[in-house]
C-alpha cells in the first residue's frame, strides 16, 4: 500500500509537532516521493500520531464470542485509533498452548482490522501450578506472558515464570492483587461501607506489587505490572525504579478519570477489577503518569454481555470496554488540564507499549510499518454506549462529553477506519 497523509500536525518521538506530509510505500513509512498514491488523505488541522498500541485487552475469542470476537474487537480498536493490540489469555480454551495462539494469530490476520499480538498464559489453565508451554507459544507468536484476570498466585510460580520467560526474551505481566484480601466487589472505603458491599482494600494490590518488585529486584529480571490503581503501588514502583529495578507498569483511563463514587446507586457498569479507587489514588496515578513512574496507558478492554451487567451489583462481571474512549479520556483528563503534553500521551499509548512488547511498531520512523492514527483534538463528542463498534456496550462513560475524536486509523498503510476524512 502506497500513500500520503497531507499537512497534518505530526507528533513524532521527540515530542516536536510539525506540519508536514507523511509518506508510506509498500506499507512502510518512506521518504517523500512522487506518487502514485493508493491512499491520499488530507489531515490539515488534524493530529497525526503513531498508531496506538494496547498492551492489555480482552478479545474473548475463542470461547466468549457472545461478548466480543476478533473481528468486532479489532474493529472497535480501529475506531479508537489502535493499530496493534495485545490480548490476554483468559479465553476458553485458555491461551496456554501454541494451537490457541495460532488460532488467534491466523484469525486476526485474515479477518481482523488491526494487528493482534496474543499474550500467553504463564501457567497451564491460569491455575498457577505448572508452567505453560511458553517457548512453543513464543514460536507461534506470543509477545508476553500473563495469568491476567488473576495474579500469578504464588511467589514460587512467579519466580519460575520470570526466569523461564527470560530464555525466550518475554516479559511477565502480572495482575497485582492478593487473592486472600480481594474478597469483594468494589474498593473498600466509605462508599462500600455505606452501600453494604464487601470491599477490596488497596492493600490487596500493594501487597502483590511489593512481592513482584522484590522478585524482580532479587532476580534482576524485568517485570510489567498491569493496571496499577493505588497510590501505594505508584509510590513503591517509583522507589523501585530509582533503585534500578527493571519494572514497567501501565494504568488504564478509568484509574485517572473515575473514583468509587461511580458505584453509588449500585451501578454495575462501574464494577471493574482492580476496583475504582479514591480521589487520592486518582491524584497519585496522574502524578505517576506525569513523572514517568507509570510508563503507559492500556485499555483493559473487557467486553461483557448486557446480561452480565444487568444483574444485582454483587453478581455483575468486572470490566469495561475501552478502545473507543481511551484517547479522548487521555486527552480530556490528562492533556487538557495540563498534566501531560499531547506528545507524552501519545508516547504512553504507542511507543512505550510497543517497546515493552518488542513489536517494532508504535513509531513514525521511516522503514517501519505504516501504522498511524489521525485525530481531531478540537472536536467534542458524547459517548453513546449504543453506538459502539464493539459487540458489547459495557462502558461507564455513557453520556459523558469528551474532547478528541479519532478520524482515521491506518495499519500497514491500509485505512482500517475513516470517519469522514477525505
Amino acid at each position: 500500500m502506497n500513500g500520503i497523509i497531507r499537512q497534518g500536525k505530526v507528533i513524532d518521538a521527540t515530542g516536536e509537532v510539525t506540519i508536514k506530509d507523511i509518506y508510506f510505500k509498500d506499507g512502510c513509512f518512506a521518504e517523500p516521493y512522487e506518487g502514485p498514491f493508493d491512499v491520499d488523505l488530507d489531515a490539515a488541522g488534524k493530529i497525526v500520531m503513531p498508531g496506538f498500541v494496547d498492551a492489555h485487552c480482552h478479545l474473548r475469542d475463542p470461547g466468549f464470542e457472545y461478548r466480543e470476537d476478533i473481528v468486532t474487537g479489532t474493529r472497535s480498536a480501529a475506531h479508537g485509533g489502535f493499530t496493534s493490540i495485545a490480548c490476554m489469555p483468559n479465553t476458553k480454551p485458555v491461551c496456554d498452548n501454541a494451537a490457541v495462539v495460532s488460532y488467534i494469530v491466523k484469525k486476526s490476520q485474515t479477518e481482523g482490522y488491526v494487528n493482534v499480538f496474543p499474550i500467553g498464559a504463564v501457567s497451564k489453565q491460569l491455575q498457577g501450578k505448572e508452567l505453560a508451554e511458553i517457548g512453543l507459544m513464543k514460536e507461534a507468536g506470543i509477545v508476553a506472558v500473563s495469568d491476567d484476570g488473576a495474579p500469578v498466585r504464588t511467589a514460587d510460580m512467579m519466580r519460575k515464570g520470570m526466569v523461564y520467560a527470560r530464555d525466550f526474551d518475554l516479559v511477565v505481566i502480572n495482575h497485582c492483587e492478593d487473592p486472600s484480601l480481594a474478597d469483594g466487589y468494589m474498593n473498600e472505603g466509605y462508599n462500600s461501607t455505606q452501600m453494604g458491599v464487601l470491599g477490596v482494600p488497596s492493600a490487596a494490590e500493594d501487597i502483590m506489587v511489593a512481592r513482584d518488585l522484590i522478585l524482580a529486584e532479587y532476580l534482576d529480571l524485568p517485570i510489567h505490572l498491569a493496571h496499577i490503581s493505588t497510590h501505594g503501588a505508584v509510590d513503591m514502583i517509583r522507589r523501585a525504579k530509582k533503585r534500578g529495578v527493571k519494572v514497567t507498569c501501565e494504568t488504564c483511563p478509568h484509574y485517572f478519570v473515575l473514583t468509587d463514587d461511580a458505584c453509588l446507586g449500585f451501578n454495575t457498569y462501574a464494577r471493574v477489577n482492580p476496583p475504582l479507587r479514591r480521589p487520592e489514588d486518582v491524584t497519585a496515578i496522574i502524578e505517576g503518569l506525569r513523572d514517568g513512574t507509570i510508563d503507559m496507558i492500556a485499555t483493559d478492554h473487557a467486553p461483557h454481555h448486557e446480561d452480565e451487567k444487568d444483574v444485582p451489583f454483587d453478581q455483575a462481571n468486572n470490566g469495561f470496554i475501552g478502545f473507543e474512549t481511551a484517547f479522548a479520556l487521555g486527552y480530556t483528563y490528562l492533556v487538557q488540564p495540563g498534566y501531560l503534553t499531547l506528545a507524552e500521551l501519545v508516547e504512553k499509548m504507542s511507543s512505550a507499549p510497543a517497546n515493552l512488547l518488542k513489536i517494532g511498531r508504535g513509531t513514525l520512523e521511516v522503514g517501519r510499518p505504516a501504522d498511524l492514527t489521525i485525530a481531531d483534538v478540537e472536536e467534542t463528542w458524547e459517548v453513546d454506549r449504543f453506538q459502539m463498534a464493539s459487540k458489547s456496550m459495557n462502558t461507564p462513560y455513557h453520556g459523558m462529553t469528551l474532547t478528541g475524536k479519532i478520524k482515521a486509523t491506518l495499519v500497514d498503510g491500509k485505512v482500517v477506519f475513516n470517519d469522514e476524512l477525505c
Partner: protein
Amino acid sequence: MQLKSKDLLGMQQLDKEEIELILNTAQGMKQALLIGHKKTTHLQGKSVVTLFYENSTRTRLSFEMAAKYMGAATGNIAVSGSSINKGETLLDTAVTIDHMATDFIIMRHPSSGAPFYIADRVNASVINAGDGMDEHPTQCLLDLFTMKEQLGTLSGLKVAIIGDIAHSRVARSNIWALNKFNSEVRVAGPASMMPVEFEKTGAIVCNDVKEACEGCDVVMGLRLQLERMHSALFPSVNEYARFYGINDEVMACAQPHAIVMHPGPYNHGMEMTSNLRYSDQSFIDEQVTNGVACRMAVLYLLNVRRNSMAADQ
C-alpha cells in the same frame, strides 16, 4: 401528605416527615390490632407477593399478616420450590410476578441494592425486606416505633447498637434514620466486624461495649450473621459472649430506663444473656407486634400513593 416514592427501598431515601407519617399511621394500626380489629378494607382488591431469597420467619410472616389484616390477596414465593431453582434470574422472576397484576412486591435478597435494581423495572411497589448488608427499612421503622412508644421521643436519644455491624443492614438503616432525628448512635463490636470509615456514617464507633452503652436510652443487640461471613471473624462463641455480649453488667452502664431491643432471630446466650432477653427491660416481643403495625402502615401509605397516581392518570 403522602409518600414521595412508589417504593420503600431504604431509610436513606425517606425524609423525616415521611418517617413521622409512617410512624403516626402505624399507631392507628396498632390500636386496631390491639382491640382485635383484624379485618379492614384498606387493601381490598389489592395483591401482595412476598419474594424472599433468604430465610425469614418474622419479616415474611409479619408482612403477610399485615396484608391479610387489610384485606389483600397474598402470594408467597420461597426460593426452594420455585423456578429460581431452574435458573430464572431475579429480574425475570420479578417481572413475571409484576405481570400478574401484583400491586406490592416485598423482596428480600442477599445482594445489596437488589430491590433498587428491581424497583425501576416493575409497576408494582417494591418494599425492601432486607437487601444484603445495605438496608432493612421496615425493621428500622418498627425499631423507631418501639423507641418512640417507650421513650416518648426520637430526638436526642442515645442508642447503642452492639455486635456484627459489618453485616448488619439493621444497623445501617437505624443510623440513617436516627441521624435525621438528631439522636446519637454508638456502635461497638469486634473490630473484625467493623467496616472501614464507619464513623463517616455519623455513628460513634466505640472500642468496647460498656463505653458504647454508657448513659444510653436504647441498647440494641444484633444477630451474628454467620451466613454472610466468608471466613471466621471471631474465634469462638464463648469469647464473643464474654467480650461483646450484652449482660447485666453492660446494662448497668446504660440509663436506668434503658430498653433492650434485638431484631431477631436471637442466638441464645451469644448476643445477650437469656435473662435479659426476657427481662422487663426487653421489648423484643413488643417489636414483633409493632412490626405488623408498621408494615400495615407502609402498605397502606404506598397504596394511597398508588391510588392517587392512578387517579392522576
